[in-house]
């Protein structure tokens, strides 16, 4: 009996269709982002009118309402930046590890950043915002390298299972270490709370301006590595055959990704699952070309985080739910969906 016929050759047509729609999707996404950001400025525990919002955006802080709105502007800006950085960072990590489950939260990179910051606060009394960022990036980098090395030992390299297990186990270990560092220091335990739950509520213009340079460098490195990620997707041997310096390309891209998520974590605390969910959604929309995938992941990440933040303000009125909690609630089912879709052999 002959083997079954190959599947009908419909793929190129779809791919061409996707390719034509790519600019369109990017434009749509940007428009949605604008709308969400506007909503984020307008919606909160205090009801304000459209006129108040516009006045506040114009710089006025006269009335109560306008003042309330003005406070939401840095918060919104931080949500947009953090979301973009996390989405982009996730897309790059998934490309570098060739692994659909790579995400700063799953890989324990966020926890690494948290531990580094908490340790620095407790031991050397670190308190400057820039200091936080450097320390967080250092912690994130060390953890990322560690988890990747541990997860790629043995047969089959960095399979999703091994990487996720290494990340989960590492992050559990780091959580214990965080408690060990903080418990003797009752005086700082309050300020540590934010390192356990991520949120953008504390965003100010000054903290944003501190983190901006780091994000810019991370963004640049990530976007520049789009082409390399495309070749890396074919496997290391083939990429090398195409003239890619595999180790260098991978190192640069990974550093960009770690820079992005480390810097964001320094300001917001750990926010998981954005980096996981967003790149998958983007791949469905525009395919696997990283030159389009990376920018769209940034925009979609910003949309996701900003709208989640708004959601957290609406559902628990007059209280707020931190975004870190909502992204986990939304992201985990998505994670499970991806796991279920994979063939067992690929796990």
């Amino acid at each position, binding site marked *: 009996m002959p083997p079954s016929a190959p599947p009908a050759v419909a793929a190129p047509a779809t791919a061409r269709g996707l390719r034509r729609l790519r600019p369109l999707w990017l434009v749509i996404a940007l428009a949605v982002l604008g709308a969400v950001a506007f909503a984020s400025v307008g919606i909160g525990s205090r009801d304000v009118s459209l006129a108040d919002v516009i006045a506040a955006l114009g710089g006025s802080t006269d009335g109560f309402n306008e003042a309330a709105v003005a406070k939401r502007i840095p918060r919104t800006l931080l949500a947009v930046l953090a979301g973009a950085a996390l989405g982009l960072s996730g897309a790059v990590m998934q490309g570098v590890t060739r692994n659909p*489950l790579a995400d700063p*939260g*799953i890989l324990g990179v966020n926890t690494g950043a948290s531990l580094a910051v908490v340790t620095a606060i407790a031991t050397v009394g670190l308190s400057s915002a820039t200091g936080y960022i450097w320390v967080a990036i250092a912690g994130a980098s060390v953890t990322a390298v560690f988890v990747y090395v*541990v*997860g790629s*030992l*043995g*047969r*089959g390299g960095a399979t*999703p*299972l*091994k990487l*996720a*297990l*290494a990340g*989960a*186990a*590492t992050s*559990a*270990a*780091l*959580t*214990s*270490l965080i*408690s*060990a560092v*903080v*418990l*003797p220091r*009752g005086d700082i*335990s*309050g300020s*540590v*709370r934010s390192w*356990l*739950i991520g949120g953008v509520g504390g965003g100010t213009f000054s903290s944003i301006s501190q983190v901006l340079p780091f994000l810019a460098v991370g963004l640049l490195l990530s976007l520049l590595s789009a082409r390399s990620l495309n070749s890396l997707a074919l496997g290391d041997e083939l990429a090398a055959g195409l003239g890619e310096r595999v180790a260098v390309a991978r190192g640069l891209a990974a550093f960009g990704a770690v820079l992005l998520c480390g810097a964001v974590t320094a300001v917001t605390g750990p926010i*998981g*699952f954005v980096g996981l969910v967003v790149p998958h959604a983007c791949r469905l929309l525009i395919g696997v070309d990283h030159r389009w995938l990376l920018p769209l992941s940034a925009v979609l990440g910003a949309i996701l985080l900003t709208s989640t933040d708004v959601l957290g303000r609406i559902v628990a009125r007059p209280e707020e*739910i*931190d975004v*870190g*909690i909502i992204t*986990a*609630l939304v*992201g*985990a089912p998505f*994670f*499970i969906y991806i*796991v*279920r879709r*994979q063939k*067992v052999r690929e*796990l």
Partner: protein
Amino acid sequence: MTALQAPPRLGITAGEIAQGRRRRTARRRLVVGVLAALIVAAFIVSLCVGQTTYSPREVLGVILGQDIDGASFTVGRLRLPRATLAVIAGLCFGIGGVTFQTMLRNPLASPDIIGISAGASAAAAFAIITLGLGATQVSIFAIIAGLGIALLVYGLSFKGGVVGTRLILIGIGIAAMLDSLTAYVLSKAAQWDLQEASRWLTGSLNGARWSEVVPVAIALAVLAPVLLTQSRNLSTSQLGDDAAAALGVRVERTRIIVIIAAVGLIAFATAAAGPIAFVAFLSGPIAARIVGPGASLLIPSALVGSLLVVTADFLGQYAFNVRYPVGVITGVLGAPYLVYLIVRTNRSGGSL
């Protein structure tokens, strides 16, 4: 090198087989005996030693119900329930953890990684902090949540059969979600108290009372024998579902009994002491190293778990100038071993 000696043996006698087996059984018995003795010793030390040290005779007096000044309160009301809970919870975590690891053929697939401890912990934190329930209700809450999570993880990983890798990954996803729920519940507590929070994040025996100890003890007395009856089926299941079924194991039934019993133990222990970090995870592999391969690990692992918790709790209370909850100690001590374990498992791609 023995290549040049003795020609290859072609046969083997039943006597030789029996001898080898007896050797291994003897080792296992020895290990079990030594571990049990160590637990008793650690238990006695943690009753006698502390801010004030009492003699074993005074402690025995208190246990027998005599009224001894000071000791009656310190030992009878504070140290005794605490040390008892440490022993019992350790047994629960140890046996529950190794059961999952054996069943899923992966040492990393312990209840604290695949979300079961996280579920019980989130439920217990919610029941205590948000609903303000008492010990028994909290236990019930935790076990329902633990079983619910186990069923959810199992159900979600079902797709033409359950595959271990898929189950572990889905468990990790669920655990991440539950951890953030716990964090949310804690953040809504009237007062952000890190000591209390750390109970639900890493596990703690602070302020253990008899009312918390009793449900766990009952659970252990009922569920551990259930697991022990399944011990041989469980080790045969390690050969793979097909091979085990061909040897007469009813694979699905074994799996369900074992899951319910193990989840029950984990959940009861978690409701009382929080998800004491890594005990469920580490006991099995440590026991496997001591006992050697091939033997059933349920009892050795339970004993290792118990010894870990008793010792770590004692260290946490008195070894440093701060009182650390037990979970922080096991977490920090466990971390290096954990890393070693991941590296070794990934190298060999194997199981326990």
